Each structure stands twice: as structure tokens, then as C-alpha cells.
């Protein structure tokens, strides 16, 4: 299948319109890389279940539009409501533009935030979508946590977009580095508004120094007509710890890539996720853990609930490279399908080239337990209530794994709201 492609001329024109700053050279290199390799199609193994045609359409419409410079549009209400609901030090990017005030307002010691354009402008790009991100990036954030620092409040990263009138596309990029023995927690929040088509493409890189510890929660609550691709790449230092939890509630076509690289011994990574999808939503989670040395631990559990015509995709890959003895890799994926038209495509992969390892995966697809339903019915609950309770419990298992305690309550409420919306269409 030949995909629709992004127009190179339009991309080039757009890149040339971006400021002549520290990122200019990298933008061109990324564009060339993208031009050479192109965007993936469903014939590409990693994109078998997710078709980017829709996103490419939006991109082309956006590039054809009168795009001189990206502007941060009216996202004020959305930003304020999120800031008010979660206690954190917020860094805000609206439509791909950094809110300078939010950087200036950071009150904690041990953390410094700069713009990518201020530095040498080096950006990693290796995949087609990170190429696209680097090529069209207006500016990104570099967050540095000093050695031995222990941040007391979570750092919130708010990525909001508004597409009120015309099709929009935005690129955001966050580079985070934790120096040795530091501790920090992050909340990456994606939200959007507006009735026009929108596509957001975010890229984050997280580097953990030796013995450092990062907690990372990603919450995605985009408008259900908007699209998103998101990539988080994590490099773990010696004896470092990374706890990650992702919640996908919104979005029409959503693709999340999480790559964890264990190249130093003693590192531990736990990454979990929950996706709740209904209507025409398509939520795709791809994870990859590379164990290059041992000992190292990577554990993941993703859970999904699908109703309506929704489609969930989960692909977990653990690669134990030659010599990574002492690796412990676990993958789990559990799914509930609640309607006739919903679909899940799950693929847990293990590639193992070392022998002293403990690796396992388990995947299930099914419905609510009949016995449990019956039990609740005998206690006087009607079927709808009983189903609500059981689906919530199914989802709650991921909340309890979420590493930032202060947002558990907020997450629980959000899940309850989303589930009650999803289950309205499900027969009682």
C-alpha cells in the first residue's frame, strides 16, 4: 500500500519559515532524513494496525495553510483548569509554543529549565515521526535536575493544543536529564480543544543518571476528534529506577511509543498503562525494553477497555541482548471488550539472546467474570451497577501502580467518569 505522504516542498517551505536559531541546522538534517526514509505504512511491522493516512492528510492541509509562525492560541481556560486540578510546578506549551512565564515561575531548587534553541540545538531523531518533530519544531524544553537533588513537587508538563478554525499540527519536544543520585517526578499532560482537525506529535527523551530515580505519569485527555503520536525514550543509568504510568482517555487516533534502554547494570524500569476507548477511538501502545546488560529489571502491565467501534493495540517488546544475564523481564496485557464492534490487537514479543534470564509474558482478552457479576447481583446491585464496579476495579489496578500518590484520587475520578460515559452504550 502506497501511503499518502507529506509534501516535501510544503515541509521545506515551513522549515524555512522557522526562526534562524540554534535548531536551524538540525531541522534541515531531520527533514532530509524524513524525506529519505518516508513515513511508515501498515506494511511496516510496527505500524501493522495503525494507519497514518488521516494524520498525513491533516499535516498536508496544515502545511498548505497560511502558516507563518505557530501561535499559542486561546487555550487559557483549558490550561487553568488543569493547573488547578493537579498540584505541580507546571511548564506549559500551547500549540507547540513555550509559555516563557511558566519557565520563569518555577520555584524549586535543583532544577533548571532552558529552551533547546538556546543550546547547541542537538536533537536526536531516528524514527520518521521524530524526524518530523525535529524538522518542524519551533522550540523545545531542556530540563536538568542537579546531582543529589530531590525535588519535592512534581514537575508538570502541560501540552495543550487548540484547533478552532483550521486543521492544526503541533510539535513538542522535552529533553530531561537527571544527574546522579537525584530524584524527581513528572506529570506529562496532553489536552486539546476545538472542533477542527488536529494532530499533535510529541517527543520526549529522559536520561537517568547513576542511582537516580524518576517517576513519570502521562495523562492523555485530548478531544476525541484529535490525533496524537507520542514517543518517550528512556535511558537508564547504573542502579537507576524509572516508574512510569500512562493513562489514555481521549484522542481519535493515538499512538504511544515508549522505549526503555537498560545499558547499565542494576537498573529497574516499571511501566504500566491504561487505555479506555469508545466510539471511533484507536489507541495504540508500543513499548520496547532493550536489556543490554544485566542484571536489570523491566516489568510492564497494560490494561485496556474498549467499547463502541474502538480499537486497542498493544505491542510489548522485550529484547535481551547477548550478555545481558540476570535480566528479569515481564510483560502483561489484559483487555476487556465490551461491544460487538470493538477490537484488540495484542502482541507481546520476546527476543532473547542470553540464557540466564527470567522472562515471561501473559495476555488475556475476555469479558467480566460471570461469577463476580452474579455475586454482586445477589447483593442487590443491578447489572449495570455491577458491571460498572467490576470495570472500575479492572482499571483501578493500574492507578494503584501509578507512582505519584498525590494524583491517585484525581485519576480515580477521571476513570470513573470516562467509564460511565463508555458504558452508557453498553447494554445493561
Amino acid at each position, binding site marked *: 500500500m502506497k501511503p499518502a505522504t507529506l509534501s516535501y516542498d510544503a515541509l521545506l517551505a515551513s522549515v524555512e519559515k522557522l526562526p534562524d536559531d540554534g535548531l536551524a541546522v538540525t531541522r534541515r538534517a531531520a527533514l532530509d532524513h524524513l524525506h529519505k526514509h518516508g513515513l511508515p505504512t501498515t506494511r511496516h511491522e510496527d505500524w501493522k494496525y495503525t494507519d497514518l493516512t488521516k494524520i498525513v492528510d491533516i499535516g498536508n492541509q496544515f502545511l498548505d495553510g497560511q502558516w507563518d509562525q505557530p501561535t499559542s492560541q486561546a487555550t487559557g481556560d483549558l490550561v487553568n483548569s488543569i493547573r488547578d486540578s493537579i498540584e505541580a510546578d507546571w511548564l506549559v506549551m500551547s500549540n507547540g509554543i513555550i509559555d516563557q512565564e511558566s519557565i520563569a515561575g518555577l520555584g524549586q531548587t535543583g532544577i533548571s529549565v532552558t529552551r533547546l534553541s538556546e543550546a547547541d540545538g542537538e536533537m536526536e531523531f531516528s524514527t520518521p515521526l521524530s524526524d518530523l518533530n525535529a524538522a518542524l519544531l519551533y522550540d523545545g524544553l531542556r530540563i536538568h535536575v542537579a546531582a543529589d537533588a530531590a525535588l519535592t513537587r512534581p514537575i508538570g508538563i502541560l501540552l495543550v493544543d487548540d484547533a478552532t478554525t483550521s486543521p492544526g499540527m503541533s510539535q513538542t519536544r522535552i529533553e530531561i536529564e537527571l544527574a546522579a543520585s537525584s530524584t524527581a517526578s513528572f506529570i506529562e499532560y496532553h489536552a486539546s480543544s476545538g472542533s477542527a482537525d488536529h494532530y499533535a506529535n510529541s517527543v520526549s527523551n529522559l536520561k537517568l543518571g547513576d542511582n537516580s530515580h524518576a517517576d513519570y505519569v502521562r495523562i492523555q485527555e485530548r478531544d476525541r476528534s484529535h490525533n496524537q503520536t507520542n514517543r518517550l525514550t528512556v535511558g537508564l543509568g547504573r542502579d537507576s529506577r524509572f516508574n512510569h504510568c500512562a493513562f489514555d482517555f481521549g484522542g481519535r487516533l493515538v499512538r504511544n511509543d515508549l522505549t526503555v534502554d537498560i545499558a547499565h547494570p542494576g537498573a529497574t524500569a516499571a511501566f504500566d498503562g491504561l487505555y479506555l476507548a469508545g466510539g471511533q477511538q484507536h489507541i495504540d501502545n508500543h513499548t520496547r525494553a532493550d536489556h543490554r546488560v544485566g542484571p536489570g529489571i523491566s516489568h510492564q502491565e497494560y490494561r485496556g477497555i474498549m467499547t463502541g467501534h474502538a480499537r486497542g493495540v498493544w505491542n510489548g517488546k522485550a529484547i535481551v541482548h547477548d550478555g545481558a544475564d540476570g535480566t528479569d523481564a515481564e510483560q502483561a496485557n489484559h483487555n476487556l471488550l465490551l461491544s460487538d464492534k470493538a477490537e484488540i*490487537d495484542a502482541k507481546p514479543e520476546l527476543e532473547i539472546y542470553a540464557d540466564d534470564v527470567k522472562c515471561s509474558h*501473559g495476555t488475556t482478552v475476555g469479558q467480566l467474570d460471570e461469577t463476580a457479576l452474579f455475586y454482586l447481583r445477589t447483593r442487590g446491585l443491578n447489572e449495570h451497577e455491577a458491571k460498572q464496579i467490576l470495570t472500575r476495579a479492572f482499571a483501578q489496578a493500574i492507578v494503584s501502580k501509578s507512582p505519584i500518590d498525590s494524583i491517585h484520587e484525581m485519576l480515580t475520578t477521571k476513570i470513573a467518569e470516562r467509564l460511565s460515559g463508555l458504558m452508557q452504550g453498553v447494554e445493561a
Partner: protein
Amino acid sequence: MTTESDKLESLVNRRYEHGFVTDIAADTMPPGLDEDVVRAISARKNEPEFMLEWRLRAYRQWRQMQEPTWAHVHYPPIDFEAISYFSAPMSDDDRPKSLDDVDPKLLETYDKLGIPLHERARLAGVAVDAVFDSVSVATTFKKKLSEAGVIFCPFSEAVENHPELVRKYLGSVVPQRDNFYASLNSAVFSDGSFVYIPKGVRCPMELSTYFRINAANTGQFERTLIIADEGSHVSYLEGCTAPMRDENQLHAAVVELVALGDAEIKYSTVQNWYPGDENGKGGIYNFVTKRGDCRGANSKISWTQVETGSAITWKYPSCILRGDNSVGEFYSVAVANNYQQADTGTKMIHIGRNTSSTIVSKGISAGHAQNAYRGLVRVMPQADGARNHTQCDSLLIGKECGAHTFPYMEIKNPGAKVEHEATTSKISANQLFYCRQRGISEEDAVNMIVNGFCKEVFKELPMEFAVEAQALLNVSLEGAVG
């Protein structure tokens, strides 16, 4: 022909513990493939017009197809023009009609392999349709089978005697353009087995075929078609060995199973082709398409395989669960040692209501081998009440080998229950220590642990195969420990 014989001569003299190439004049076509070769193959087999047309259609489609590269295996490119597409031990006219007519040298070959054909067949009560290279040379127990109404014959004979059955079912499970190797097979298949079990008949004995690859440089393209009519039952055994040679040999077989209402087919394989030497030189390329179609309600197809041979295995025996309440099973042990590469698994396609499937896959990697499980469980929207359980375990012996799993689950029905579990581990020092402490040598201990690991699959094999399979496993893993 002289060069071929010379090659055979030189191969006979080559060093190989169990090695031999039977020195009989092979009637071999020159290497290369075009429409004329396809016509020639068809002509030699006196095939009716419809078969030639069918082959030519497949050939034209194959020409437009690309060789697949997605499997987790690596090998030098295959030159399809360097392969000879037909080789018969004797010309068709004086093909042996019974065991007595069989070239004694051929029988000697079976002896060397430990398969005393007539004895084994008589003692075990198994009918053996031995395929020596491409033309079936001996079929026994025909009478007993024909009394039951069972047709068990070489494929070419079925084309002659039962064209209506061949026409109806050939390619109905694995279409000509299914994949690159199935297309190639459809164009040039030489021979194979044909089985038809009539309505309500329980096949009086286990049917068995021994495959052998013999003439140098000859790809072997088997075609097997088994049809179990309503309410019938058949158990089919397939096993194979091959002599040593330096060039890699391509083997692209197609097996099609059709189970109509209430019918059951059990298909067991022990595959022990030449895997290449300890440095990975030589060995068979085994690119096989095996698929069963549970076409009728309450039908059942069960695949059991023990894969220890071949340099490269690329094989996914699958079940299409079309009939309501149909059942698919896949039990597999795949052993890869030295530089062997295996990419094997199954596909279970749930279409009918209340269909169920079970997958048990045990992969053992040793030496420098790479062993991958690749499976698909697809539940179609109309497949209410579908059930699947997959268990997929890997055992690693040694630091240089690899074990991989690529299971795909595509579920489009909310009533489906699908479970997949996989584990990877090595033989623990504790287990070994315990056995050693009890006076069991390290090699015996490993064999014991490996056999225990595979027990779930072995118990699905017919008795005699199960014994053979255990012995085979021990031989395959020789030298893996230490």
C-alpha cells in the same frame, strides 16, 4: 545426466557418519524454472489438462511474488534458477508396483536409516507411502484400506484415478497465491500423498509417510491433501530424514487438510532432516505451508510436531475454524542446536461459533541456534464464544543461542476468551545439581529435564512416535551441554 551421477558418486564418498546417497540413476531435469519446465513436469506425470492449467496459473502468480523476508531467520539468497525442479528415482514406466519391485538399493537406504520398510509396516500395522525424492515408490496395505473405502495413494495416482476429488479440494485450503513458497509448490509439485476417508469411516490404521530427500541439488516439492468426509477419523504420521550434502536444499511442501462435519484429522510430524554440520554448513531449508480447514460443524484438526532437523525451518501449521463448535489444536516441540534457525508456530482463525483452539509450543535452543515462535490467534466478529489458550515456553541451553516469541492476537468479538502465556528460562543449576547428586550424569540429567519440559507435547504423539521423538531429542541435543 552424467554430471548428476558424478555428483552422486562424489557425494557417496563423502565423510558422514550416517551419510549415504543412494546410487540409482535419477531422472532429473536441468536446473531452472520456466513455463516449459512446468509443462514438462505435468507431461511426465500424464496429468489431465486441468492440472496443467492449475500449475501454470500458480507459476505465473509466483513470478510476480516477492520472496518473504519477515521471518526471524538469516540465509544467503536462494537462486531459484539453480534448482532442478524434478527428480524421479526411475522413469514413470517402470515405476515399482509393489515392494518386491522396489530397487533393493532403495530398501537398503531405508535400512540404513533404521526404517525397515516392510517389517516396520507389517509389525506396526502402519501403511507406509514412502516418498523417495519426488515419486512415491511403494505403497503398502492398500488392500486393507480399500476395503474400508479409504483412498491412500501417491498424489499423482489420485490425479489419474480420482480427478473429481483432486479438482474439488486441491488449493481450497492453501490457494495458489497464498504465499511465495506455496505458489512455487503449486507450480512444480512433484508428488506427495493423497488421503480420502469416506463418510463415517474410522481409518483402520494410522497412515504414515516417510519422506526422503535424495538427488543432489533437487528441491523437493511435496503436496499432501487429506480429506476427511463427514463423521470420519484419520491419524496421519509424517517423518523424514535426509543424507548429508554441502549445498543447501530447498524444501517447500504444502499440506492441505479438509475436515467436513464431525470429522477429525490428527496430523503428527517428526521432522529430522539434515540440520547442517556443527559449523552451520549445509542443511535443509524447510519452508512449509501446512493448513487445515475445519469446514464442517464439530470437526477437529490436531497438529502435533516434533521439529529437530533442518538448517532453517519456516513452518506454521494452521487451523481455519470455520464450522461451528470446531476445534483446532497445535502441539509443538522445536529443537534448534548448533546453527539451526527455526521460525515456527501456528495460526488459529476462529470463524464459526463456539470454536476453540489450544496451542502448546515448546522451543529449545542450544549452541548458536535461534528459535522463534510466531503465532496468530484471530477471532472474527461472528465467532461468538471463541476460546483460545496458548502456552508458549522456551528453554535456553548455552549462552550463544536465542529464543523469541512473536504472538499476534487479533480479537474482534467481545465474547472471545483468549489467553496467552509465555515463559523463557534455562535449566537451573539447582535442577542439575539435584540430578547429579542422585548419580545421574549431566547429559542424562539435561535429557531428562528436556523430556519433562516437552512431556505435554509428547503425550499427544502416537505411541511409537513418542518413543522415537524422545530418542531424537537426546540425539539432537548431543554436545549441547558441557
